[in-house]
C-alpha cells in the first residue's frame, strides 16, 4: 500500500525555519517507520537526515515525534498509526541540528550531573557485589532505560525550563540511589534536590506515555521526592 509521509525538514545552511516535505512510499502494515525513512533516504531523497543504529529498539537513537507522539521510529509500525499521512518531526524542545537530528549535548550533560556510574567506597570484593532478588527488583525497571530522550522531550516542565534535569536523568538518578551496591545516594540526592531538579516535576505523566520501554518514570520520580522529604525536610 502507498503511505504518505509529511516530514519536517530543516537544513541550517539553506533554511531559516523548518518546513514540511511530503513523500509517498510503498509499505506493508507491519513496516516500521524507520524502514520507511530508510526507503525515503535511499531511494527518493538522500538529503534527509535522521539518527538510527540498531533498528531493534535498544540503542535509543531513533526517537522522534511521530503523529504528535514521541517514540522510536524502529518500534512504531505503519499499522499502529491512524490512516492518512504520517507526520514525522524531530523530538520537541531540543535544538534542531538538521531535519530529524536534534542537539542532545545538554541532555547528556544533565545525565552526567547525576553521576551515572556505580560509586562504592568500600573494599573491592573478590567477585561481583551480590544483591538479593528483592534488592534487584527495586531498580530492575529503571535499568531498562535506553536513553532515547523521548521522555524528557515530552515533558512540559522541560519545555518551560530547559535547565530542568528532566525525567530521563531523574530516572537514572533513581537507578543509582536505590541500588544497594552504590554508596553515593546522599550526593546524588543533593544533585536532584536543586531548583532545576526533581520538584519541577508536577506528575504530568507525559514521560510515561512517551517511554518506548513502558517504564513508569513518574512513579520513580515520586519515590525520589519521598526519599528527599523523609530525609531532608
Amino acid at each position, binding site marked *: 500500500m502507498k503511505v504518505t509521509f509529511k516530514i519536517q525538514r530543516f537544513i541550517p545552511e539553506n533554511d531559516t525555519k523548518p518546513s514540511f516535505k511530503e513523500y509517498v512510499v510503498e509499505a506493508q502494515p507491519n513496516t516500521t517507520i524507520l524502514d520507511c525513512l530508510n526507503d525515503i533516504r535511499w531511494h527518493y531523497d538522500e538529503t534527509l537526515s535522521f539518527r538510527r543504529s540498531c533498528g531493534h529498539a535498544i540503542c535509543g537513537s531513533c526517537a522522534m515525534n511521530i503523529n504528535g507522539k514521541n517514540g522510536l521510529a524502529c518500534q512504531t509500525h505503519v499499522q499502529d498509526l491512524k490512516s492518512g499521512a504520517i507526520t514525522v518531526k524531530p523530538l520537541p524542545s531540543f535544538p534542531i541540528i538538521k531535519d530529524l537530528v536534534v542537539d542532545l549535548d545538554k541532555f547528556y550533560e544533565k545525565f552526567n550531573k547525576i553521576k551515572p556510574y556505580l560509586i562504592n567506597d568500600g573494599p573491592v570484593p573478590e567477585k561481583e557485589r551480590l544483591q538479593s532478588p528483592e534488592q534487584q527488583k527495586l531498580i530492575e525497571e529503571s535499568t531498562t532505560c535506553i536513553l532515547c530522550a523521548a521522555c524528557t522531550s515530552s515533558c512540559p*516542565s522541560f519545555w*518551560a*525550563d*530547559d*535547565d530542568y534535569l528532566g525525567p530521563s536523568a531523574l530516572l537514572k538518578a533513581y537507578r543509582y540511589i536505590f541500588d544497594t551496591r552504590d554508596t553515593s545516594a546522599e550526593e546524588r540526592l543533593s544533585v536532584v*534536590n*536543586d*531548583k*532545576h*531538579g*526533581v*520538584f*519541577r516535576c*508536577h506528575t504530568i505523566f507525559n514521560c510515561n506515555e512517551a517511554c518506548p520501554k513502558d517504564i513508569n518514570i513518574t512513579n520513580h520520580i515520586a519515590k525520589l*521526592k519521598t526519599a*528527599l*522529604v523523609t530525609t*531532608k*525536610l
Partner: protein
Amino acid sequence: MNIKFVPGDSGMRRWFFQRITGIFLVVLLLVHFTIMHFIGTGETTYQTVASRLASPLWKTFDLAFLVFALYHGLAGLWVVVDDYVHKDGWRIFIYSLIVLGGALLLALGALTIITFSPQMLTTVKM
C-alpha cells in the same frame, strides 16, 4: 533561555506542604459540602451562617479552612511563577504580590472569623 530562580530553592518544602494542605482541603471540603448541601435546609441565610459562626468549633474550622486554602492556592501560584515566569524582575514583583496579598487576605479573613459575633449586626441595626 537561561532561567535564574529568585529566590532559588529547590521547592521541596513547598511541594511537601502543597500535598499536606491538599489532604486537609479534601477533608475540610467534604465537611463543607456535607453541611452546606446535604444536611440542613440548603438555604444560605444570615441566620444559618451567623449561628454557625457563633460557635468556637466552627470558628476553628473556618480558620483552618482559611489558612490551608490560602497557603495551598498561593503556594500553587508560586510554583506556576517558578515554572513559567523567567524574568527576575517579574518574578520578584509577583512573589511580592503573593506574599503581601496573602498576608492581607489572611488578616482580613482571620479578623472576620475571630471577631464575628451574631450580636454585632443587631447592634448596628439599632
